[in-house]
């Protein structure tokens, strides 16, 4: 349904021209996303995980058209995204759910108007009485009461607000939803409610999801396939179960190793040393090589390509 081909987005973070010229500094380009390729079949969920600054949210914004790609392309059912987004009928079919339910709802609007806005914007249900009926149905669908439509966002808790965001996203009958960290601002018991709701909706409505998260445990619960991102690239892309049972890329393994363990097996862990380098001046060769236990000279010089679901010289050469 969605195909991203060699997608890249660079941001120019240079100082202003005069300052740059006086200080004889070169332009500084931040490569937020640098050559990302994936596809999402209809009715499935692809998740992108990674630490902050790895470019996962930028991919989400590229895929719904909030940013234009610097190079590469996004295809929505075989058509280029910018062409597809030119028609309202196509725009209606993709929606986004954001991380912060406090910032993504207009505080001056009643819930009814928030949820009805996409319906009005796309002219889906012209009759006001039917429109009210549709909003009530959406609110019921996400586990709220139709009476909540008359309230303002501040009267709701974080989890309820995220339900409102989901009702708004569903109101234009989309087929493809991009969820950027939809539960990371929520408490764990509320997170469980929202994740269950999203899985339920996917079953009932046959939705396709691109799910962005930093939490591997959450990702395991919702995904069919998972892409692990590091410094603007996908370093491993695999079926959800095989990623967790047999992680291959050293970074994926390190991430799994680092997660605090509720089982309290008492195993001693070796945390990954170092930090994510700056995407303005990424390391040469494989971006993970300064932190990688398997790095050799080839890793320092040559960028590995994503072959057979993993971008790592060591794995491809059988050195792991």
């Amino acid at each position, binding site marked *: 349904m969605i195909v991203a081909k060699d997608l890249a987005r660079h941001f120019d973070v240079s100082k202003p021209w005069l300052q740059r010229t006086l200080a004889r500094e070169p332009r500084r380009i931040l490569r937020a996303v640098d050559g990302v390729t994936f596809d999402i079949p209809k009715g499935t969920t692809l998740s992108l995980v990674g630490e902050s600054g790895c470019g996962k949210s930028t991919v989400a914004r590229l895929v719904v058209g909030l940013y234009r790609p610097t190079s590469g392309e996004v295809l929505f059912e075989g058509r280029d995204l910018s062409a597809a987004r030119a028609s309202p009928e196509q725009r209606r079919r993709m929606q986004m759910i954001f991380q912060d339910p406090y910032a993504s709802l207009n505080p001056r609007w009643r819930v009814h108007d928030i949820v009805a806005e996409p319906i009005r914007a796309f002219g889906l249900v012209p009759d006001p009485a039917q429109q009210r009926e549709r909003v009530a149905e959406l609110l019921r669908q996400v586990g709220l009461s139709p009476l909540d439509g008359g309230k303002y966002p501040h009267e709701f808790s974080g989890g309820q607000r995220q339900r409102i965001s989901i009702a708004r996203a569903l109101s234009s009958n989309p087929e493809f939803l991009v969820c950027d960290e939809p539960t990371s601002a929520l408490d*764990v018991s509320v997170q469980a409610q929202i994740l269950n709701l999203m899985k339920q909706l996917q079953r009932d409505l046959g939705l396709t999801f691109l799910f962005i998260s930093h939490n591997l445990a959450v990702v395991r619960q919702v995904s069919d396939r998972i892409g692990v991102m590091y410094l603007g690239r996908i370093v491993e892309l695999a079926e959800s179960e095989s990623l967790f049972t047999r992680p291959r890329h050293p970074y994926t393994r390190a991430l799994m190793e680092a997660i605090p363990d509720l089982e309290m097996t008492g195993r001693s862990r070796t945390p990954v040393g170092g930090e994510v380098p700056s995407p303005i001046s990424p390391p040469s060769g494989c971006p993970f090589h300064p932190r990688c236990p398997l790095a050799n000279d080839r890793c320092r010089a040559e960028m590995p390509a994503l072959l057979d679901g993993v971008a790592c010289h060591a794995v491809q050469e059988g050195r792991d």
Partner: protein
Amino acid sequence: MLLEVKDLRVEFPTRRGVLTALNGISFGIAPGEVLGVVGESGAGKSMTGAAIIGLLEPPGRIAGGEILLEGRRIDNLPLAEMRKIRGKRIGAIFQDPLTTLNPLYTIGRQLVETMQAHLPLSDAEAKQRAIGWLEQVGIPAAAQRIDAYPHQFSGGMRQRVVIALALCAEPQLIVADEPTTALDVSIQAQIIALLKRLAREQRTAIMLVTHDMGVIAETADRVAVMYAGRIIEIGPVRQVVKHAQHPYTAGLMASIPPLDRKVDRLAQIDGSMPRLNAIPPGCPFSPRCPHVFERCRVSRPELMPAGETLAACWLHDKPGAPA
């Protein structure tokens, strides 16, 4: 016990009446012990930490109970007295390292200033010690980086500087409020290892406030679970995580997505925590509790022995009752 909190009560007077934010909080921490405090947002876990270090946001005030450090009351001390204790005997680590550090001073100056406020040290001695502390918390090339400003460090490194700052006057107790929440998992693991090492080697007592059960399970010796301004269960970490006695703790544990398997549907606790102005009579968890019965709605349970923990739940008042 190094720190003892007895029946602590914190109130917020508002225009619409007095809100009780914390009620009947009692616990203790021994030297070298890590006490985890967990709960969802608004449960009062950060406020408990703030009350102990004497930094309650006004108009919040301690309305009852006692806080004792080595047997001496510290909750009613004059401001100047409390300032001497804070930093010297109780260190604090907050969630956001950027707001804790002064952006205008080098980290070296901030460390030296903190140490000299509490310990009789010359400038050279203080600087030497500052470098030592930065090395302790794992900052590479500490001797050079001591003259760097906070913005020149990454998030994980800044949090290490904050920890060094909390440690440099060698406090007996550290109150760490969500010290790893703003950090990525790989950095989080490094910080947790550091805190554990401190408790073990320096016998520092640590009160670790967080909403992340994984962090607690890895770090804490004992856990207190808070709900609506009360401790509803407290006990050894393994017992609380594996054999929770309070239905809320059990629900909280079950709702954590497991990493080692995919489940079709996560257990969820329906509803949400009551607001402070609408805490139900009886047990505050009763409207959401799957095991609720008549007594829960009318009378409030205190902590009582339950399995190997203490739980505030009437289910444990009947001898031989199932959890």
